[in-house]
């Protein structure tokens, strides 16, 4: 098998299988949770659940990840908090506005949009990678994280890091031949997609539950989430 064949395999059957596992696995987990049943909260509202949820999303998406000082709570661990926020921001920027990724979106949904200039993309991909390294070091040294971290967490880290680093190398045309690095990128992406339903990277799916619940609970009690 030469690299051209490997590339054909990884962007063909492998990626398709990975996507099927990704979608089927996450759907299963979602349905599993939904089927556990939901009881209606019968306590009378003091404020608006709806507004609580809206405020919570706005705060969570816009304000807090980048301004940890707002709550004066994160004074012991600001770097982790900012690294976490920047990691997610970088990931979304690259996935949504990376020129190559836009082509993938076009093939999936039929329309496309304008990508960001290369230097900006380079900045965000580097930021994402650096943030991940900081988060790794933090996880290796913080006592609470050491206690919480089990083997699957390292897999989570690795399967996210590999597509990022291979994507970075490919976009900058460094060191490797195109077929080689593109294959490695696609294999690592497939690995990520296959792993997501089994680990905690799936939090993006349940984020909408917990975030809505917290906002609604705060709104119901007339407090700011």
């Amino acid at each position, binding site marked *: 098998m030469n690299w051209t064949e490997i590339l054909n395999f990884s962007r063909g059957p492998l990626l398709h299988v990975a996507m099927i596992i990704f979608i089927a696995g996450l759907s299963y987990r979602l349905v599993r949770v939904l089927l556990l049943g939901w*009881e209606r909260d019968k306590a009378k509202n003091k404020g608006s659940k709806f507004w609580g949820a809206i405020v919570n999303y706005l705060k969570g998406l816009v304000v807090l990840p980048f301004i940890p000082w707002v*709550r004066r709570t994160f004074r012991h661990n600001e770097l982790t908090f900012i690294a976490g926020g920047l990691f997610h921001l970088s990931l979304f920027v690259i996935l949504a506005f990376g020129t190559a990724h836009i082509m993938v979106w076009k093939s999936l949904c039929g329309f496309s949009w304008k990508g960001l200039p290369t230097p900006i993309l380079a900045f965000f991909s580097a930021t994402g990678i650096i943030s991940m390294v900081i988060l790794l070091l933090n996880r290796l040294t913080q006592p*609470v994280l050491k206690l919480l971290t089990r083997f699957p967490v390292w897999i989570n880290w690795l399967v996210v890091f590999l597509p990022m680093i291979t994507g970075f190398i490919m976009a900058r045309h460094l060191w490797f031949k195109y077929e080689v690095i593109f294959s490695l990128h696609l294999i690592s992406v497939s690995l990520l997609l296959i792993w997501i339903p089994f680990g905690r990277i799936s*939090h993006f799916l349940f984020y909408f*539950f917990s975030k809505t619940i*917290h906002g609604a609970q705060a709104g119901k009690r007339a*407090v700011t*989430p």
Partner: protein
Amino acid sequence: MKSQKTQSAINTYLKETGGWVASQLEACTRCGICAEACHFYQALGNPEYAPVWKLEPLRRAYEQRFTVAGKFKLALGLDKKLADSDLEHWSKIVYEACTVCNKCAHVCPMGIQLGPLIHAVRAGMAAAGLVPADLAEATEKQKTIGSPLGVTDELWRERIDWITDEWEAEIPVDKVGAESLVVFTSIELMKFPDNLAAIAKILNKAGESWTVSSTGREVVNFGYFEADEELTRLFMHRVFKAAEELGVKRIIISECGHAYDAFRWAAPNLMKVPKGVEIVHISEYIHHLWKTGRLKLKEGAFDGETITFHDSCKIQRRGGIIKQPRELLRQLAPKSFVEMTPNKEQSLCCGGGGGVISIKEADANRYAVFEMKMAQLQEIQAKAVCMVCSNCRLQFVDSVGHFNLPIKVHGLAELVSKALI
């Protein structure tokens, strides 16, 4: 080893695990940021006090029963089944190093409701009979005698009579047809009678038609501290039954945070509650009486020494009564009222709530937390602090004594009553 009691804990966890619990356990990324919010972790540095770690028994029970990943992890030896020793270990963590103040939920990037989930962990402990001895003893007293402090019917009557005489505050007992039923805590009755008398004076001054009940006389709910659902219901049922018998329109919860949380937010989901009876906290009711002109308060009555307000987790952060006590304080001490930071929803807990103060073995924990509170007080050079929860007040009075601080501790009602015109 797993005995029958561990099995009852696991059964409780599985019963508690609806979509509401499951979706939040699934959302957790194990980022550990919640530890930043926990006053017990911040004060003592024990990583096991991180709120997310307190959920371990619930998480394990849930994952191993309901998720493929959980079953895999078990098969590969990456996770362990819950054993007796685990529950005993976590019992100390969830009862002695958590006030269920839910600040962690406010810092969690995912918004996971750690407080209510820790309450669920406690429920399993209660089912397994693994409640700390002191807490269990107080609960037993509430069950059999009617008060966690062991106040008997006779003693209750004597104290009410004594307070009536001593403070010249009329306290109507079992008055059928009154509009409001006021339910006090044993803490107020035995330790802060001044606060009880103050509330009586305020209500009398406002011309409120109110009463206390000799059968529904305890508002504190030690079943709720333990998270024993049956006892939680029983203790609230006593009050609801009294309210129905007296035909009142509202139940006024006196200065107790957990009680307000139980009656206002938990009761409708746990039991049948009397129709048309509203639940209000005394601080919001006093504010209402003042705003509607039924009370007149002398402006600046407490101006002089710096006074601050301590936010209670269940009344402010989880109860939404944030602006009312502040507006009252701005009337009472417009020049001397200063806020601590952080405050309101982000406030730092006193360290004694959630039953912690009733557990002797947790004394070191709560004093350590109070040192953080002390730093907050000293930062603004407060000479007095005021609050609307007797449990907080007990922790403050005890800790101020322990650390020998020159700070006066007040209940809000007590200040209001002294400023009545």
